[in-house]
């Protein structure tokens, strides 16, 4: 049974449908793997009975010939998604014990498609972090280790529990969310695939808000095909989200093709950064060769405002976060601390005790840049630069169909190794521009570095063109032959 957990979603789907194994066997295998992997700290809540209930329903329905797309498939859910009756804390003490009386649209869509839930996945507090170290539950430990070392590594963040769960076979697929790289950077760090779709494809309703103009849900899984299967189930118009795109969901899986003849791959010259390790730039060059081999033509492009993307992000995201997180006031849900000074004292004491250091730092930055006298100099300026960054991409996509870059400027680092907030922010240097422009973007594993750690390649597509991103990802996947797995130590 143990080998069930190493299968892809497509393999599980086919094996379940052909009767090779039952949905119950699938759910029991993953439930057992989750229960035995506490050392990774990937799950904050385990819900084996939820996975089993969906499996029973799938087994009963098999043979009816009318199975929904994810029948028999159990999934891990990032703790940012509201799940009815199951603790939803966004990795924060301030939401301790919060059991939503409702279900997020994305998880409701997955349930409608037949998926069960294995549990809730650990994450950086309110998705603010690139290493999972800001979680109130403590950091997730990556299943990967450097060659000949047992130093604990970060799985990246903020979807670190999601990434570790897929890499360690604790779920065949998971939900993640990406505000400035939170799906793609952790996917790269643990050698899996993750896609952030075009802003508006997946409903934000019931997803705990961080920065609403950037937040977007997406899947993480072992393969490009699995991501396509999951994204089809997650996406779709939702009247409850005013920025939800009222468009049909394409048949991304059916449209998969690694034949890239006639496609032009943009290589942005501004993404060649001196401080990036040579082996990452070498992998980028291999990625260009792989896409050429698939029939695509590389073209050099320019995204002139690239260097301003991170500073723009670190004005806009904290500004939106400071507004969104104003709701945690100790009145309606979550933590309450009494304080000593009436209502105002209760607010201050609750937020002092409930938020961690990084969340406080970002609320403070956001409050400052939105405050009287500074709003135009910081926030309006950042939104203007954001418009220029979006324009850079619009011009680039006149010359190319998809853009290839590295996913992150380094491989996974050790827990506690990066203590300077600014150095931590630089992790998302390649991921943030696509977030600011709302574009679909994906990380696929490309190879291992000298220390034996995975490195990812990053594909950015034009608005609504997830298909080309997935297809280019598939072409890389077929050529990279990435089969490395972490050695089990947990």
């Amino acid at each position, binding site marked *: 049974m143990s080998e069930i957990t190493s299968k892809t979603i497509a393999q599980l789907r086919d094996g379940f449908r052909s009767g090779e194994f039952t949905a119950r066997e699938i759910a029991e295998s993953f439930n057992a793997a989750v229960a035995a992997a506490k050392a990774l700290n990937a799950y904050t809540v385990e819900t084996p009975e939820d996975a089993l209930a969906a499996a029973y329903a799938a087994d009963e329905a098999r043979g009816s010939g009318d199975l929904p797309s994810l029948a028999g498939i159990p999934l891990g859910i990032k703790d940012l998604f509201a799940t009815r009756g199951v603790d939803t804390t966004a990795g924060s003490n301030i939401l301790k014990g*919060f059991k*939503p*009386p409702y279900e997020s649209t994305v998880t409701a869509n997955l349930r409608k498609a037949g998926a069960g839930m294995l549990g809730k996945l650990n994450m950086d507090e309110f998705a603010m972090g690139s290493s999972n170290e800001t979680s109130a539950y403590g950091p997730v430990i990556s299943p990967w280790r450097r060659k000949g070392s047992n130093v604990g590594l970060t799985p990246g963040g903020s979807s670190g529990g999601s990434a570790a769960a897929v890499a360690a076979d604790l779920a065949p697929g998971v939900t993640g969310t990406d505000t400035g790289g939170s799906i793609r950077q952790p996917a790269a760090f643990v050698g899996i695939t993750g896609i952030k779709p*075009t*802003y*508006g494809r997946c409903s934000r309703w019931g997803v705990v808000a961080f920065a609403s*103009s*950037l937040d977007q849900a997406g899947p993480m899984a072992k393969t490009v095909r699995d991501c396509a299967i999951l994204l089809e189930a997650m996406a779709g118009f939702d009247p409850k989200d*005013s*920025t939800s*795109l*009222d468009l049909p969901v394409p048949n991304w899986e059916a449209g998969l093709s690694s034949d890239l003849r006639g496609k032009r791959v943009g290589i942005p010259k501004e993404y060649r950064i001196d401080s990036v390790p040579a082996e990452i730039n070498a992998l980028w060059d291999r990625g260009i060769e792989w896409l050429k081999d698939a029939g695509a033509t590389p073209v050099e492009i320019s995204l002139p*405002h690239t260097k*301003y993307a991170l*500073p*723009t992000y*670190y*004005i806009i995201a904290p500004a939106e976060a*400071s507004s969104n997180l*104003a709701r945690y*006031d100790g*009145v*309606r*849900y*979550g*933590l*309450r601390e*009494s*304080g000593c000074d*009436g*209502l*105002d004292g*209760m607010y*201050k*004491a609750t*937020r*002092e005790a409930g*938020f961690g250091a990084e969340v*406080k*730092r970002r*609320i*403070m*930055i956001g409050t*400052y840049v939105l*405050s009287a006298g500074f709003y135009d*100099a*910081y926030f*309006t*300026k*950042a*939104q*203007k*630069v954001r*418009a*220029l960054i979006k324009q850079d991409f619009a011009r680039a996509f006149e010359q190319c169909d998809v853009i290839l870059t590295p996913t992150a400027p380094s491989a996974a680092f050790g827990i506690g190794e990066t203590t300077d*907030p*600014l150095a931590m922010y630089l992790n998302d240097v390649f991921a943030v521009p696509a977030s*600011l*422009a*709302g574009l679909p973007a994906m990380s696929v594993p490309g190879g291992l570095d000298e220390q034996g750690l995975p490195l990812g390649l990053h594909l950015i597509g034009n608005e609504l063109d997830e298909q080309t991103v997935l297809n280019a990802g598939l072409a890389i996947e077929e050529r990279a032959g990435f089969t490395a797995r972490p050695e089990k130590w947990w």
Partner: protein
Amino acid sequence: MSVSSEQVRHIAKLARIGMSDAEIDALVPELNNILGWVEQLAEVNTDGVEPLTAVIEQKLRLREDQITDGNIREAVLANAPEAQHGFFAVPKVIE
């Protein structure tokens, strides 16, 4: 621009986050470091550029003005740290 500990204390007050003097002192250099870094945006010529308002161009939808839910008081109050008589309870605000 750089912030002083007085300004950081004021921001903390605006954000309703209780902070000790030690925490404020630790935040001053951190915030200045981050603000100094974001100020490189001043180099970018944004004359005549409209600030971005929608990431993906789309019209805001209108919906029918209908009541579609309600009568779920118990569910709304279920997570309240303190609820009394069908209301959220807060510390006394009027003497």
